[in-house]
């Protein structure tokens, strides 16, 4: 049940997408998002969508896993859709009764907005699905490197992110175990009123917090034992290097963005 949470999970694989430099993927995601938000008509949306489908195919991530990751977002999607349908002013009125008016513009806008959110999230998922947490934070640290000149704690931030990502599965497993143990003592998480159900969370949250603090303490000790003292003078075993495929990725990203902007300017 809890194991079904796929957010921020990494699917090991050996596709071209998996092997791309994490920095390439991060920059590419930014390009993709800009393109997505610049897209303003069917053709440019179609272009971005085609690109997304292409990347999904190349990455060999099963479509099922992507769809499963979408489940928690169904509510936001529907909410956005409804909001846009009802609150977009337009000229071509489709249905009108009482205070509600649905216009053609509203429906089109709703479809665009929902498609935008769906594609945005799928794209982000693809990044975390194909990039291991360590590679991701390495890439981020390297990309944000210039900000060190402004005395921003870049290394510390990326280390925090790395640890957080690393411990998501551990904490999920821990929660699962504690839930099972409390269920074995007759705890009931599925029935009862809302207040009862919130109260039923106490036997899970207290042990979970205690164990999280204990883990943090142990991790700090273990890091200190290995002489960790921040990013200063720390070298890396796996140096990030751009390869041929990264160049192709950048080129295709530039082409995508260029095409979408051109379409936007000419209003096609």
């Amino acid at each position, binding site marked *: 049940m809890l*194991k079904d949470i796929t957010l921020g999970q990494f*699917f090991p694989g050996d596709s071209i997408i998996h092997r791309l430099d994490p920095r390439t993927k991060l920059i590419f995601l930014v390009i993709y998002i800009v393109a997505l938000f610049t897209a303003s008509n069917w053709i440019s949306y179609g272009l971005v969508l085609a690109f997304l489908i292409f990347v999904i195919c190349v990455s060999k991530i*099963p479509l*099922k*896993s992507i769809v499963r990751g979408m489940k928690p977002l169904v509510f936001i999607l529907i909410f956005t859709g409804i909001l846009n349908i009802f609150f977009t002013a337009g000229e071509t009125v489709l249905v009108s009764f009482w205070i509600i008016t649905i216009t053609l513009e509203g429906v089109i806008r709703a479809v665009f907005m929902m498609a935008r959110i769906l594609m945005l999230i799928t794209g982000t998922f693809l990044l975390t699905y194909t990039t291991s947490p360590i590679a991701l934070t390495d890439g981020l640290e390297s990309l944000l490197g210039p900000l060190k000149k402004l005395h921003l704690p870049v290394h510390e931030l990326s280390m925090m992110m790395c640890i957080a990502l690393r411990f998501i599965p551990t904490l999920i497993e821990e929660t699962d*175990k*504690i839930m*099972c*143990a*409390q*269920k*074995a*003592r*007759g*705890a*009931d998480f599925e029935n009862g009123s809302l207040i009862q159900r919130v109260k039923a969370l*106490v*036997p899970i949250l*207290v*042990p979970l917090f*205690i*164990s999280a603090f204990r883990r943090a303490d142990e991790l700090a000790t273990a890091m200190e034992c290995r002489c960790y003292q921040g990013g200063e003078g720390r070298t890396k075993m796996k140096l990030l290097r751009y390869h041929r495929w990264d160049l192709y990725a950048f080129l295709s990203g530039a082409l995508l963005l260029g095409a979408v902007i051109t379409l936007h300017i000419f209003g096609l």
Partner: protein
Amino acid sequence: MAPILEVRGLTHIYSVGTPFEHTALKDISFSVEPGEFVGVIGHTGSGKSTLMQHMNGLLKPTEGTILLGGKDIWSDKALTRQSRFRVGLVFQYPEYQLFEETVYKDIAFGPKNMGLKPEEIDRRVREAAGFVGLSDAQLQASPFDLSGGQKRRAAIAGVIAMEPEVLILDEPTAGLDPEGRAEILENIESYRKAKNATIMMVSHSMNDVARLADRLLVLCDSRLVMEGTPKEVFSHAQELLDMGLDIPDVTRVFLRLRQLGLPVAPVYTLDQAVEALLALKGGDHRA
């Protein structure tokens, strides 16, 4: 006597239909008689913990059935919930599930969930605390102020307080010092004697299971590979060692003695070892 627990053709597969699909149990069948002490051994990842979580309906079998007192625990919802109380399951490192302000309240969590009257809850908490040797002062303390061994015993008391007919313990002595281990094993025995309860215990200590268990189940790579009395199981010493499992220390010593040419019978507890050695000395009564 009719078996209290019966497992028929149990198969469990985790994460069906994902890249992480993994068979944890494969076609396992056995039964447990009332009042029996069953030891479960097997190396890490052999499926012991998964098997234990099926006994009280925490996990649903992918295939097969689990009968408690002759009834399938998944046949209706009330029965599944009942099985949680009739089969008490103590997880590995149970001290990590303590959460209440006082030890007393934590032990009362299970009985409270059973919907018992306050007087009955009080009686059960005090009795359970008695079984595991916690004093009244400790009952009023915060569980987080206790020592490691005391925490473990408080957590076990939390399950014992439900007065389960079958008490299942998953490596109850892991990570404790010798004194703590001996205490926990004594606690389990005293509960068993007082309530005539059935015990299933997962353990890596062959010395403990050889001494305590009436019967042993041996799991290897998701399958039940051996089943029998400690004598029967430990007579296959070489097979156990090949599976990466251990054998009791005395069994090891006696195996070596036999290899050295001493005509001793295979033994698995200290008492038997003494007997065997005395028999060997024959008429000599200096011992």
